[in-house]
């Protein structure tokens, strides 16, 4: 009964779909000056944010940037030291129950009780949300099928692999059909197949059900399908925008070189082109407007065993360029 109420409320709140202009639709998530200190440590400085209903929003940043703390404040689990946040139009401090009724949260760490079976875990949740027995049985069937866990439903979670636990956690997060779903590193520790499956599910959730997704991830290439991403660093948002726009702003082409001696290679590239390249994971790379103009300068390198790749800038390039991690690759300055 409660679930039905929340569904209709969702329709009333956001009659238009995501394509509607930002101005006319109440934001699904809004934060202004949201910050949190731990003693004298400033975990989150001031977050200003607006996420539209039905948007797939990526919240990226290095470890310690304040992503998890921000999610905890947005989901009413942590009180902000300053600022305020509204979720589905409800204030996190004034109406935490209203907020919790409209959201689902998938935490970075598991929430499952390993002594209970998959089905018992899910039933516990549906009952906490006040779903009727029949409704809860129906939804549990549905999500278990969706995540291919139906045949393990009566086994204890203790026997599940990390990927299965994660999938079950995600199933738990969407069980009550929240209109806004928060995910803190949903694919952490999963193998590529599992990650793909979960992302496919999330995309469908967003495009078909109109669920607003707010997620953090370390796998930056995964954030590409996000409608918009915000990159946070040191408790502040440093850049917000569509991934494609962000990448374009960075430059047109990315040149990557690798060899057995990346240090020497980086030095050589700097000497030949005058650009200080970025050296990460043994790959020397830099971003240019026009690769054709730079490539000839790199010709001397062909005598060595160097692998050259020409790619588009990735979200990771954007990330590195704006976060504190990018201090050695000031591609933007050039």
């Amino acid at each position, binding site marked *: 009964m409660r679930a039905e109420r929340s569904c209709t409320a969702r329709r009333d709140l956001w009659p238009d779909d995501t394509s509607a202009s930002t101005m006319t639709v109440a934001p699904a998530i809004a934060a202004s000056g949201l910050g949190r200190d731990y003693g004298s440590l400033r975990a989150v400085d001031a977050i200003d944010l607006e996420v539209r209903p039905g948007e797939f929003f990526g919240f990226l940043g290095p470890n310690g940037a304040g992503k998890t703390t921000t999610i905890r404040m947005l989901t009413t689990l*942590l009180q902000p030291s300053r600022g305020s946040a509204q979720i589905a139009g409800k204030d996190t401090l004034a109406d935490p129950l209203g907020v919790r009724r409209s959201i689902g949260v998938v935490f970075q760490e598991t929430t499952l009780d390993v002594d209970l079976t998959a089905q018992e875990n899910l039933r516990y949740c549906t009952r906490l949300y006040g779903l009727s027995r029949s409704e809860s049985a129906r939804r549990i069937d549905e999500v278990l099928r969706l995540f291919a866990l139906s045949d393990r439903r009566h086994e204890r979670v203790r026997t599940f692999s990390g990927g299965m636990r994660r999938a079950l956690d995600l199933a738990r997060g969407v069980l009550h059909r929240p209109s806004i779903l928060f995910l803190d590193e949903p694919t952490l520790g999963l193998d590529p197949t599992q990650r793909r499956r979960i992302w496919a599910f999330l995309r469908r959730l967003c495009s078909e059900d109109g669920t607003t997704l707010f997620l953090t991830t370390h796998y930056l290439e995964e954030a590409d399908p996000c409608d918009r991403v915000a990159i946070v660093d040191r408790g502040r948002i440093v850049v917000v925008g569509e991934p494609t726009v962000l990448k374009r702003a960075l430059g047109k082409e990315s040149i990557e070189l690798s060899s057995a001696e990346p240090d020497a290679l980086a030095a050589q590239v700097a000497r030949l082109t005058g650009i200080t390249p970025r050296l990460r994971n043994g790959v020397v790379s830099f971003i240019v407007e026009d690769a054709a103009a730079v490539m000839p300068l790199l010709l001397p390198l062909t005598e060595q065993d160097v692998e050259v790749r020409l790619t588009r800038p990735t979200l990771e390039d954007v990330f590195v360029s704006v976060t504190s991690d990018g201090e050695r690759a000031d591609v933007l300055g050039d």
Partner: protein
Amino acid sequence: MFWAIEAVVIREFVRFFRQHGRLLSTFARPLLWLIVIGSGFERVIPSEGTVSYKQFLLPGIYAMVLLFSTMLCALATVSDREFGPIRMLLIAPLPRSVAVIAKTISSTLLGIFQAALFLPLIWILGLRPSAGAVLELLGALALSALVLSSLGMVLASRLRSIENFAGVMNFLMFPMFFLSSALYPASTLPGFLQPLVRADPLTYTVDLMRHPLLRGLYPANLSSDYTPRFDILVLASLSVLLTGVAILLFGEEDHLGRILLTEAPRPGRGGPAVPPQEASTPGIPPVASEPAATSPSAVEMPRTRTRIPSGAASGQERLPGAPEKAATSARPAEYSADEGGSMIVK
């Protein structure tokens, strides 16, 4: 609300039956005390009137069952928090008070259930209470379970990890048990201990349970110290008080959130209290000062980021040839920061 409480109770019971060690110790511990301590003391303490020492001990055994059962429930709440399942409860649309009450109720019911398993001991030990007295005993068990459960919740709200449980056992549970009249009439304890005896909730639970069991049988020096009415008054008000305190302690959303922060910075514990970048650039906001963009098309890029390169070049690099994917997943190590603490080290 009711469904949520029911869900919490069901979960606690399912867990109870799944944990075989807990199930076993539920049976073993009280019987061990009754048989070993009971038999041993019986030799030393001569039977008074018509009451044998084991009969005298029985209410104390019930108190012990309740004490361990409720404290293990409190422990389960702490471990729920440590290992995550409490988040399911915290993120559900329930007031914190309902969450606390649900936990208290499930602990109470589990306590009554476990104590009820030992009811046959009454007849095995040769006591023949009336039906009314048995009902009275059940009521006493319920009230005692409630008091101890709410006490457990107060403890659970403050215990950070289940490792602290040993401390609870040594410094709370055993003193409570020994100071109550469970093993011997507490009135025989020296005068300086009497304030502690009176402050011990278990004193009143044992007293209240002894009334229906030994009514009409006990000789003067083994008699209960208080009237049932007084016991009930003390226990009922203590339950209300402790539940209120537990709700207050758990109710601070902030406190709960804080407990959840398993990897969050804890000021004053390892690492500098002030983030290094703040220390190095006093007064200067760490990031570009433009307001954050909120409209979808707006893109803001700090054009210049003048930063002193930190550390030697080679210090931050990875092994050559490391695959891109592995590198991204290994990022936490690269930032060398736990969520908080120092963000940029090296």
